[in-house]
């Protein structure tokens, strides 16, 4: 049985692993079988992570975080969690390989997944012209006319990146103003290959075997029109990955895992959460990393309190969380 299992391998997961490893908690990081490194693996230059004035490539930043975690003794499992049992005092984490790991505490840092438009054509043509990752798939749209749906920083970044390949990039946004940071907006506005389509909602993705266009609904006039395209990149935000903890942990109205104030404590003793899975507002690499630190420190206090009191012979229902934290102090 372990002291701590960390589920997730983005900035939150690896930062929690660094702190937990340095506290001698010997954490196991369940890093995912094919998505190690989280969202930053799908981006190019990260220019706003402090300490890197020249910028750093997303995958390089994640590789360094992993290296740092392993240097202090974190163990990495390139596997997925298929089942989670948080009901007992000892938490049970079942992996894709079939193995079940047991731990006194768990940090849940699974991040958020690309949000979909929710249209049937979108799923049907996913991978056949519909994509959520410009850096992954932009390569295949050389000299083609494509579109990015969205109005935030990710949408601007993707659109700008895609102009390296595409002949034209439409940015389709359902309002007249962008949510993106000023600097990203300016870059997009200045790019001659980018054309903005304002007040437009995508209501259908067209094509049979490959994307041929989209149907747009004007959010002001209600008029519909078709726009011919060979590629559609969706950048409308993210949804927290909480399916493993449905009915096990309390969630907020936004669908993120509920935590106590600015701590990482969830509704279950011994279970902590960090990163985008608890944060619907800021969702930056550095806020996720900070959140991972909080979770590791909270887990450390929790384990220290158990160490002092011995492993309780009671279930998590009967544990008084406040009493535990006071004992640790």
């Amino acid at each position, binding site marked *: 049985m372990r002291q701590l299992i960390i589920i997730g391998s983005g900035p939150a997961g690896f930062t929690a692993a660094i702190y937990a490893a340095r506290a001698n908690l010997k954490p196991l990081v369940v890093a995912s*079988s*094919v*998505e*190690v*490194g989280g969202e930053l*693996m*799908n981006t190019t230059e990260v220019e706003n992570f402090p300490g890197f004035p020249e910028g750093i490539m997303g*995958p390089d930043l994640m590789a360094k975080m992993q290296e740092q975690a392993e240097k202090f003794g974190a163990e990495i499992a390139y596997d*997925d969690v298929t089942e989670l049992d948080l009901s007992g005092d000892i938490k049970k984490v079942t992996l*894709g390989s079939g193995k079940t790991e047991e731990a006194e505490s768990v940090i849940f840092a699974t991040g958020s997944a690309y949000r979909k438009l929710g249209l049937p054509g979108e799923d049907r043509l*996913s*991978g*056949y*012209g519909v*994509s959520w990752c410009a850096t*992954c*798939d932009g*390569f*295949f*749209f050389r000299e083609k006319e494509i579109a990015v749906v969205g109005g935030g920083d990710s949408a601007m970044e993707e659109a700008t990146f895609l102009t390296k390949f595409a002949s034209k990039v439409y940015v389709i946004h359902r309002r007249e103003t962008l949510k993106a940071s000023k600097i990203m907006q300016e870059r997009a506005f200045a790019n001659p290959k980018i054309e903005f389509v304002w007040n437009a909602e995508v209501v259908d993705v067209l094509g049979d*075997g*490959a994307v041929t266009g989209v149907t747009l609904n004007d959010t002001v006039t209600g008029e519909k029109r078709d726009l011919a395209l060979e*590629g559609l990149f969706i950048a409308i935000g993210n949804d927290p990955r909480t399916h493993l903890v449905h009915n096990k942990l309390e969630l907020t109205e936004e669908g993120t895992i509920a935590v106590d104030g600015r701590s990482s404590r969830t509704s279950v003793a011994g279970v902590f959460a960090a990163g985008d899975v608890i944060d619907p507002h800021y969702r930056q690499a550095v806020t996720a990393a900070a959140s991972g630190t909080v979770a590791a420190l909270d887990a450390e206090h929790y384990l220290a309190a158990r160490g002092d009191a011995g492993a309780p012979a009671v279930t998590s229902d009967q544990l008084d969380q406040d009493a535990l934290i006071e004992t640790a102090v």
Partner: protein
Amino acid sequence: MTAKATTSATFEQDVLQAEGPVLVDFWAAWCGPCRMVSPVLDEIQAENPDKITILKLNVDENPDLAMKYQITSIPAMKVFSGGEVATTIIGAKPKFALEQDLAEFLK
């Protein structure tokens, strides 16, 4: 055992004229998910040496084939049988999911 590579030059022989099913993995060095799925495919090949042949095709080096098979997202895995595409799998998936997708060839 790692799966072997195929190229434009050898595709006809390696894939289209092969006797049994051949899974072609379209990948590139800059594609993170491709790198993650590569060892998974190696494992599947090692565990099923006679049922299916798994070959890797670098799209940077063989863009003509990527275009011919209308690849717009990688990793893309196409299983060829009798020279025709029998199944297409798009995106990195864990081993059990790939095995499910390939069930008809692995039984």
